[in-house]
């Protein structure tokens, strides 16, 4: 097989950068020059190699040593091992290592060679450090736990594998739900980390290590941590795992093509690094992550061709669904992705309707041209270190998504509660206020029932329509109304807010609603009552969409077409926190129905005919390139012990250690009719991430290595 190290289809063009974004400020003009193979490319100082490569249009980072398959990004979170490259000759996960001036990045073509660095080595000793509490993960839960423990006087070490605190908050351009008082609802995720962490520096007994990955918990009670090329051992008296969640995976033919990757990976590229990662996106999965990722794409000016959800109803908040549908993105429920195909990267997706048993319905297939497909089929707790620590007898707590998948608002409380509990266990006093547990419970609650929405004209000259019809924990609208006209009857934050009384038309409720579910109707706009004006929340780039004078196709709250409207004005104010309020003129009779309008970058025509199938046996284990048929064959041979399956077919044996395919393998057992009680789980051992031997050995960093 003759192969090019860089496929010829991979044209290098600079500046796949997001130049204009409604929420995020563009990065500075600084550039570093580095090399990909022989090509000179540029990146932003400090950004991950993977992001810099994507920003240069490079999506194929190497070729798998087993079959030469093109490899690219997948998780962009240090969890999988798909994005391996050689950085100055050394194998690294490109999503975890920053670019720097002059860096030589080489695509990994097959198994990476070991560079012939044969000069004698010298080592420096490391001693185990002590900490009363080691917190793994500096997202909302870890930060809040550290603060509670710190205030109680505990000696705390907080470690996080990224270079800033906040975890996945840095990807969340949208305002959070929840309660204003308890968890800063209405604040954007990107701003929340700073707010949450602002008190940590004042606590001298809380140490924070950034860029520090916990890689193993050992029999002797020590935790191994890798930070910037150093290996450190910490002996905690107690451990809190607040490491968040990783994205669940999915297999289908073509799932392993570059361009098919996690929704969180996409958000990282787009929102953290402002890389225009795609031009035509498709989303698989209608949970909050998938819905929000689709919305984030539109914010970045990226076309969203569509979204499929296998269940009859999306699992995410209805307000997120409606936001997407109103902009014109088709959301197909009871649909599945049959396959993605293309040469060296995703080029087409074929979807189909599914029956009640989730089997595709023949004749319903449709294909679309895409360049990227996001997998957004849920999150799984990152809890393997907690499980091991507990097994080894280390007092261990979990908080945030590592304990239970929920919103960031819930993670804040979960962290605070864990912090207080641990402080109490350490004899530092402090109890969990009973109200906290109740609040945490509420914030964790799943979206509830949907009530029908009937828009009513109260006969006022101006009034809000609150299209919040699903029980979710959220109340900012009730806090901002200057005349107190919006309230939640039963006082619980999950029930629906209602409007009664006066409306000043100030638009604060429109500006604050995290779900973008409130608009104003201005009925005295046209005394003749032929026209009305609406005040709509707008979070797309108003330099491109929704400019004054634009005639737009209006839709109702769920995205069904209504008619036409005309944008009259855009209001942008400091207190609206980067949200624009649009004044839209609509026919009088449409005023109660119109809740938004479509944009031309939503949806896409289906291709004529259905794209022909290619290799139909999907890759399940990406690291070891194990196909579904190989796992099925082993199961049918009678294998019921994952350890034996690993030995025979090698799933979970790769760099990620089964973090990506472990659940998929169990699903195949179920599909084969095997009772999972009969299946012996695989043994979990350190390390949870690969570490260079030189780092473990305490090798003094050599020339050219990151200092």
């Amino acid at each position, binding site marked *: 097989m003759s192969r090019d190290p860089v496929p010829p289809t991979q044209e290098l063009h600079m500046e796949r950068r997001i130049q204009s974004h409604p929420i995020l400020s563009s990065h500075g003009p600084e550039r570093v020059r580095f090399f990909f193979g022989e090509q000179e490319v540029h990146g932003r100082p400090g950004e991950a190699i993977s992001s810099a490569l994507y920003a240069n249009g490079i999506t194929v980072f190497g070729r798998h040593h087993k079959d030469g398959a093109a490899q690219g990004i997948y998780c962009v979170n240090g969890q999988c091992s798909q994005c391996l490259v050689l950085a100055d000759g050394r194998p690294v996960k490109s999503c975890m290592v920053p670019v720097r001036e002059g860096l030589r990045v080489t695509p990994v073509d097959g198994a990476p060679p*070991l560079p*012939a660095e044969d000069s004698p080595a010298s080592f420096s000793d490391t001693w185990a450090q002590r900490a009363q509490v080691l917190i793994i993960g500096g997202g909302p839960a870890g930060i809040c736990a550290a603060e509670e423990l710190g205030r109680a006087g505990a000696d705390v070490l907080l470690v996080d594998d990224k270079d800033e605190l906040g975890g996945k908050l840095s990807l969340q351009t949208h305002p959070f739900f929840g309660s204003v008082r308890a968890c800063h609802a209405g604040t954007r995720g990107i701003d929340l980390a700073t707010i949450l962490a602002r008190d940590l520096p004042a606590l001298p007994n809380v140490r924070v290590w950034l860029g520090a990955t916990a890689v*193993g918990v050992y*029999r*002797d009670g020590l935790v191994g941590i890798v930070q910037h090329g150093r290996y450190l051992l910490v002996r905690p008296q107690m451990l809190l795992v607040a490491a968040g969640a990783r994205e669940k995976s999915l297999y289908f033919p073509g799932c392993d093509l570059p361009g098919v990757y996690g929704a969180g990976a996409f958000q990282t590229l787009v929102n953290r690094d402002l890389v225009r990662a795609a031009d035509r996106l498709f989303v698989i999965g209608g949970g909050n992550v998938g819905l929000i990722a689709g919305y984030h794409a539109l914010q970045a000016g990226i076309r969203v061709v569509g979204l499929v959800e296998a269940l009859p109803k999306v699992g995410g908040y209805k307000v997120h669904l409606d936001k997407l549908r109103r902009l014109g993105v088709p959301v197909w429920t009871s649909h599945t992705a049959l396959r993605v195909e293309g040469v060296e990267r995703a080029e087409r997706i074929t979807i189909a309707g599914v029956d009640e048993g989730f089997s595709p319905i023949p004749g319903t297939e449709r294909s679309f041209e895409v360049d990227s497909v996001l997998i957004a089929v849920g999150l799984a707790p990152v809890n393997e270190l907690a499980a091991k620590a507990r097994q080894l007898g280390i007092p261990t707590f979990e908080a945030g998504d590592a304990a239970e998948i929920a919103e960031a608002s819930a993670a804040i409380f979960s962290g605070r509660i864990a912090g207080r509990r641990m402080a109490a266990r350490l004899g530092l006093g402090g109890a969990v206020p009973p109200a906290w547990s109740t609040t945490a419970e509420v914030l964790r609650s799943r979206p509830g029932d949907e009530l029908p929405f009937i828009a009513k004209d109260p006969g006022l000259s101006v009034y809000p329509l609150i299209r919040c019809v699903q029980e979710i924990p959220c109340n900012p609208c009730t806090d901002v109304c200057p005349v107190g006209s919006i309230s939640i009857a039963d006082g619980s934050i999950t029930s629906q807010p209602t409007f009664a009384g006066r409306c000043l038309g100030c638009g604060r409720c429109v500006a604050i609603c995290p779900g973008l579910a409130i608009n104003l109707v201005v009925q005295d706009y046209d005394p003749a009552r032929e026209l009305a004006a609406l005040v709509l929340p707008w979070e797309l780039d108003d330099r491109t969409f929704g400019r004054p004078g634009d005639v737009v196709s209006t839709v109702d709250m769920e995205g069904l077409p209504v008619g036409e409207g005309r944008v009259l004005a855009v209001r942008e104010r400091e207190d609206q926190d980067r949200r624009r309020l649009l004044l839209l003129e609509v026919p009088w009779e449409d005023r109660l129905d119109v809740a938004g309008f479509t944009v031309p970058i939503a949806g896409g025509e289906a291709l004529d005919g259905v794209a022909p199938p290619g290799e139909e046996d999907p890759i399940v284990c990406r690291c070891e390139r194990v196909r579904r048929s190989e796992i099925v064959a082993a199961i049918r041979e009678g294998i019921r012990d994952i350890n*034996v399956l690993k*030995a025979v077919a090698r799933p979970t044996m790769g760099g990620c250690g089964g973090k990506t395919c472990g659940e998929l393998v169990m699903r195949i057992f179920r599909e084969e009719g095997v009772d999972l009680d009969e299946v012996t789980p695989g043994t979990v051992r350190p390390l949870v991430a690969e*570490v260079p031997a*030189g780092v473990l*050995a305490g090798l003094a960093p050599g020339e050219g290595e990151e200092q």
Partner: protein
Amino acid sequence: MSGYDAIVIGAGSVGLPAAMFLGERGLRVLVLEALAAPGQGQHKSAIGGVRATHSDPAKIRLCRDSLELFRTWKERHGFDVGYKPGGYVFPVYERAHEQTLRGLLATQKSHGLHIDWVDADSMAELVPGIQREGLRGGTYSPNDAQVSPLLAAEGYRRVAVSNGVKLRYRCPVTGIRVAGGKVRGVDTPEGRFDAPMVLNAAGAKARQVGALTGLVVPVTPDSHEAGISAPMERFLDPLVVDIRPGPEGKTANFYFGQNKEGQIIFCYTPAALIEGEDRESTSEFLPVVTRRMIALVPRLRNMLVRRVWRGLYPMTPDGVAIVDRAPEPEGLFLAVGMCGQGFMMGPGVGRAVAALMVEGELPLPPEVVAMLRFDRDFFAGKTEALK
């Protein structure tokens, strides 16, 4: 329940090949394994090195047989057990070690081992990047090899099954039935199984199984840690053993090789025995073993370490296995105390013990048989030159 001709206790490094060979001889064989699948005890903790390079003639003989079996496995059974030729090297930096190793060559060769002393240049070719300063050369035994223990367990199972062997998992033996001085069968939570012959091939649990008939089997588990890297381009053919004790005072020797998957697999022998059945990795292992490896082959600094584990060496007091019939009852056999070399000796021991059970004699020279006897003096004071 219908009877068997032989029951093998333990589906590990020794029990599996023993059952396979007993089945090949036409016996009705039942293997009883306490764990959920074959090779899930200490077998899978082996790093997969198979060498006939020993100082002890018994081991040389048994491992030569193992090597031949693994080498021809694929052509005979159509299943790849991850066999990778490449030999073993023992690089030498100290005069005393050169004398010791050179001194063994005659005995080793007399037992059919293909081994020679190679000079420093040849050693540096065999181990690219090896530290040249002070390198005196070393021994090279090209017919030694590496095999995947994970695949070998499956290979044994398949051949055993095709030989008519029955295997039961999650089925620990709770008693050995004896009547009139003869073995009659075993008890398990699933009931009783009858057979006139029972083989104790219980590895790290050999002592406990021995106790079922009141026999004191002098086997004590001692734990060793090991690790494996991410795959890399093939650069190292032989498995490398550095017999120098480590300057850190914790390692007696260490060894590593690149397996067929391209992964470096590595281990050290602790300076002092670590008795017990603990199989959880310690924080000490990785810093110690990586320093030793990088000191010997500096380019290994960039190898990505993927996973570590810890397995048990079923040790006898003199470091040599017991392959013999038990003094009583009649029909009870022992193939235990492999001292951490069960994987490499397994096929040879399995074949030998099958012969003992069927023909009444080990197919080995008398001096070798004597070394493997149950009633030998375990404390005669002889130590093995090459462990």
